[in-house]
């Protein structure tokens, strides 16, 4: 499947500082069209398009909006999740830098569809340099009258990976520690300040104007049966051409990693960052879609010179540090995993350590409150599965002296 620019259509085409250049490229035409439709029609169109959440979870966008639209509350909210913290992901940064207007238009349409008067963009603290330009873009859209139905406020994070999780993010907007909430109730019913809330990734909302403008049937022609449209991928690591690539869903990992980014001597690819899947070089034919592997689209390539155990250990150190600490399977589990993996790094691990890693993994997957804890063991399980010998080599063999 080829590259195709739907989300990035205007990136490096318009001047992100001047709304006029966006208007020349059909900017806010989708918003105007949406206002001629009923909210239900807008939602029906997005539902029919098959657009799924681009933050990684892949929840159908239209279904989420329908839930918020139908829920009872004092007020409804739209949140744009721009807390792009996953290791190896930088697509939202690229989008915000190059085309903030499409995002604003997407948010305005979402707000109209669900009946929200207020919307928030939660921007990670590491991207503070984007705060000024983003607020300026909102101001420009407002002065042209495009935000007559919706007020968009940018809230800034302060360096917490977990705040990319929807419930933690809402806690953070409410001025609290970014800790998890139990689900259900889901945000569509009780989200921000316990009110119905739709929370969508930057890239998801970027698709919305194109869907409204060109229709669900047009969007539907791209992708696979259950993964429609494109995916913006952040490619980094051992590649000659790191950067952003927008591919039709169903493209193979090989097309991106070898053909476009020109990687050589690939050992493995991590798809989806620290919580993502490991794909060994022998499986580069794997397709990128919600049916196979995808996540938020971080593609980190490691060549033959890299040590699998070191990759697993460093990834787990990151997860242990960023665990919010609310639930013990994640808080304690990631910590214990770091310690055990350290044994493999040093070559002092025992035979039983592999069994402990496996048991701990299933406990964490079953009992953790959110995605961080549930997917933290992925790196261990996948590397054990594909690179078992790397672990076995590091087990200290006790010599029996007779």
């Amino acid at each position, binding site marked *: 499947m080829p590259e195709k620019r739907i989300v990035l259509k205007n990136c490096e085409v318009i001047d992100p500082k001047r709304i006029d250049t966006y208007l020349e490229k059909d900017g806010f035409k989708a918003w105007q069209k949406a206002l001629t439709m009923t909210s239900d029609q807008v939602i029906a169109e997005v539902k029919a398009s098959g657009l799924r959440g681009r933050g990684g979870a892949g929840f159908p966008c239209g279904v989420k909006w329908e839930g918020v639209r139908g829920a009872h509350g004092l007020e409804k909210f739209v949140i744009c999740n721009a807390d792009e913290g996953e290791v190896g992901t930088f697509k939202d940064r690229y989008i915000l830098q190059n085309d903030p207007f499409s995002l604003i238009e997407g948010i305005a349409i979402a707000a109209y569809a669900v009946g929200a008067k207020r919307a928030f963009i939660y921007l990670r603290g590491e991207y503070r340099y984007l705060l000024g330009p983003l607020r300026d873009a909102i101001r420009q859209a407002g002065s042209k009258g495009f935000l007559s139905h919706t007020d968009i406020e940018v809230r800034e994070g302060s360096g917490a990976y977990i705040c990319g999780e929807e419930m933690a993010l809402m806690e953070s907007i409410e001025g609290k520690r970014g800790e998890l909430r139990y689900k259900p109730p889901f945000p569509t019913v009780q989200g921000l300040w316990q009110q119905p809330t739709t929370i969508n990734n930057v890239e998801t909302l970027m698709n919305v104007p194109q869907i409204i403008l060109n229709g669900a049937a047009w969007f539907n022609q791209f992708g696979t049966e259950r993964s429609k449209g494109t995916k913006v991928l952040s490619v980094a690591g051992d590649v000659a051409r790191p950067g952003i690539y927008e591919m039709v869903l169903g493209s193979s990992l090989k097309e991106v990693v070898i053909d476009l980014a020109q990687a050589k001597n690939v050992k493995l690819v991590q798809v989806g960052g620290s919580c993502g899947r490991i794909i060994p070089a022998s499986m580069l034919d794997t397709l990128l879609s919600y049916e196979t592997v995808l996540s938020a689209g971080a593609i980190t390539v*490691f060549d033959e010179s890299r040590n699998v155990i070191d990759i697993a250990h460093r990834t787990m150190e990151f997860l242990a540090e960023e665990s919010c600490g609310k639930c013990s399977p994640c808080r304690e589990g990631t910590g214990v995993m770091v310690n055990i993996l350290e044994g493999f790094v040093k070559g002092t691990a025992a035979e039983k350590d592999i069994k402990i890693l496996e048991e701990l993994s299933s406990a964490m997957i079953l009992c953790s409150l959110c995605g961080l804890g549930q997917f933290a063991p992925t790196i261990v399980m996948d590397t054990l599965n594909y690179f078992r010998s790397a672990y076995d080599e590091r087990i200290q063999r006790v010599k029996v002296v007779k």
Partner: protein
Amino acid sequence: MTNKTTAMSKNRKEMLELLQEAQSKTGFLSKEAMTKIAESLNISKSDVYGVATFYSFLSIKPPGRNIIRICQSLPCHYKDGQTVIDSIARELGIKPGETTADGKFSFTLTNCIGSCDKAPAMLINDDVHGNLAPARIAQILKTYK
């Protein structure tokens, strides 16, 4: 009842912004600053302290005038991030987590800053510096006062 709870918790939403604002004035969150915020929002001091210490970009200790945050995540690490960390440590004469004696620089390690296409990368205050190499470090640091 629901109305009242919602209204009350909405004042609280200012907290993170108030903390960020207080920090931007003095560089860190003093006991006095946190007490003032607690009083203005009518919540306990421990609650404010809890939030202030949760976020890695908020600091309850005075940092240097410029904060260097070097990415230690995998994509940067494997592009020789460690040599950059070492060269900054050498240049400043401090280890990660420390502040120079003249108060000019604080130096910390951080997780992915979303500049993996320009690895290894670091943030100094709000500026991104990418494609770093030890040879460039001294010159970059010189541009900060």
